[in-house]
């Protein structure tokens, strides 16, 4: 696809996933380079009670600093921020994090739509958003915003997703920049700014 867009540096990478996305994340993270020049933000649906499980799992698989996002914290390059369970996470213009305990969206809190939409406005064409496996349609509206603001939309190939519904809905409703198999994602991310 359009080479010119690929030349735009990535200022932030956001990844959203639901059921079946943990496997993909556990495949991606060990293969990421240690000097990722942008922040990585994860929004993953999960039970409120399993609060630190995801953080701990990812920490053990990467040299990047992984932490659950704190409110008012600034996104910074080379770090991984995980949206806390049971809060929506929004990004402010100054690239700090706001948390929000408002109504669930798509039966989800955190909702991928909420985070992607606010990130789209902040990072515009320098945003890359990846949507992974899942069994509801959260993330689709968010990806539409990313497209509107000229960011890059990346969708997991539904055929390689444990739960294909979410990436399928995305492919049907949003023009993706690229559709990737799960085992190609780490490479894609590692080469984003080269």
């Amino acid at each position, binding site marked *: 696809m359009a080479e010119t867009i690929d030349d735009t540096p990535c200022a932030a990478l956001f990844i959203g996933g639901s059921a079946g996305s943990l496997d993909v994340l556990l495949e991606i993270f060990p293969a990421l380079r240690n000097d990722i020049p942008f922040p990585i933000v994860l929004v993953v649906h999960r039970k409120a009670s399993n609060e630190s499980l995801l953080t701990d799992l990812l920490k053990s698989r990467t040299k990047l600093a992984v932490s659950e996002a704190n409110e008012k914290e600034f996104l910074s390059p080379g770090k991984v921020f995980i949206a806390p369970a049971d809060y929506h996470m929004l990004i*402010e213009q100054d690239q700090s994090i706001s948390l929000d305990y408002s109504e669930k969206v798509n039966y989800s809190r955190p909702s991928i739509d909420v985070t992607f939409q606010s990130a789209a406005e902040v990072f515009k064409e320098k945003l890359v958003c990846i949507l992974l496996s899942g069994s509801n349609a959260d993330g689709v509206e968010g990806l539409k915003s990313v497209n509107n603001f000229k960011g890059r939309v990346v969708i997991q190939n539904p055929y390689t997703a444990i739960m294909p519904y979410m990436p399928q809905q995305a492919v049907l409703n949003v023009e993706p920049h690229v559709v990737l198999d799960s085992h190609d994602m780490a490479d894609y991310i590692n080469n984003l700014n080269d």
Partner: protein
Amino acid sequence: MISDAINNEQVEILLNDVLETHGYDFLAYSHASIKRRIIRLYGLDNFVSFAEFRYTVKTDKQYFKRFLEEITVNVTEMFRDPSFYKSLRNDVLPVLGTYPFIRIWVAGCSTGEEAYSLAIVLKELNLLNKSLIYATDINPSVLEKAKRGMFPLNYLKQYSENYLQSGGVKDFSTYYTANYSLAKFDESLNSKMIFSTHNLVSDHSFNEFQLILCRNVLIYFDKELQHKVFNLFDGSIEKLGYLALGSKESLEFWPKAKEYKRVKMEKIWRKL
């Protein structure tokens, strides 16, 4: 939801109107969050232009009530974060029980679920009769709901699970009577509550407390306003009193944080 129906400048214009016309100051609220609430309401109520929305918010008093209720987040739960309530039950309230009289402020109480949870724990510790819970919120209509003490019955299964996880040992259903789709909580609980409007942005301290509970309110404020509210709380907490915040909130960056000591792993601090 069309996420770009209203732009940043329009949010600013609207919030300035609200301050000038109605006296509510939302300018120091976290921008991304309040903007999302505004766009959500705009979509829910089918406005077709920003001008129409602005005019209605400015001139229609009845509509402004709705605006106030929808723009603030009123999602809450009984015994939210059970481990927090466990710590209140085991570490905090027994200490306050040694006082002749306990004054508690639930700031930003919304529809009252936290205040009723607290009253239940106080009751089980035999402290409710010497306690007074001041439950305040910016929003008069949620306080009306809080006073009634009736919560949707379909949430009670979750609340009852939370209650048990927080160390509650009774049958939770003894605290309410089911009435159609609502659970009406025992009047002995709210007999010790005083409900009043209070705006953390603009109102002052009104008493001294041994415990202030303000959970998932400060996340909606910018840093400067958070510090202003911490100062307000500091001026309203007795020496050795407690301040309890939401699970993702922290005193950490507030200059006077050194004068407070964290209670175990929970978001509870004791004034030294």
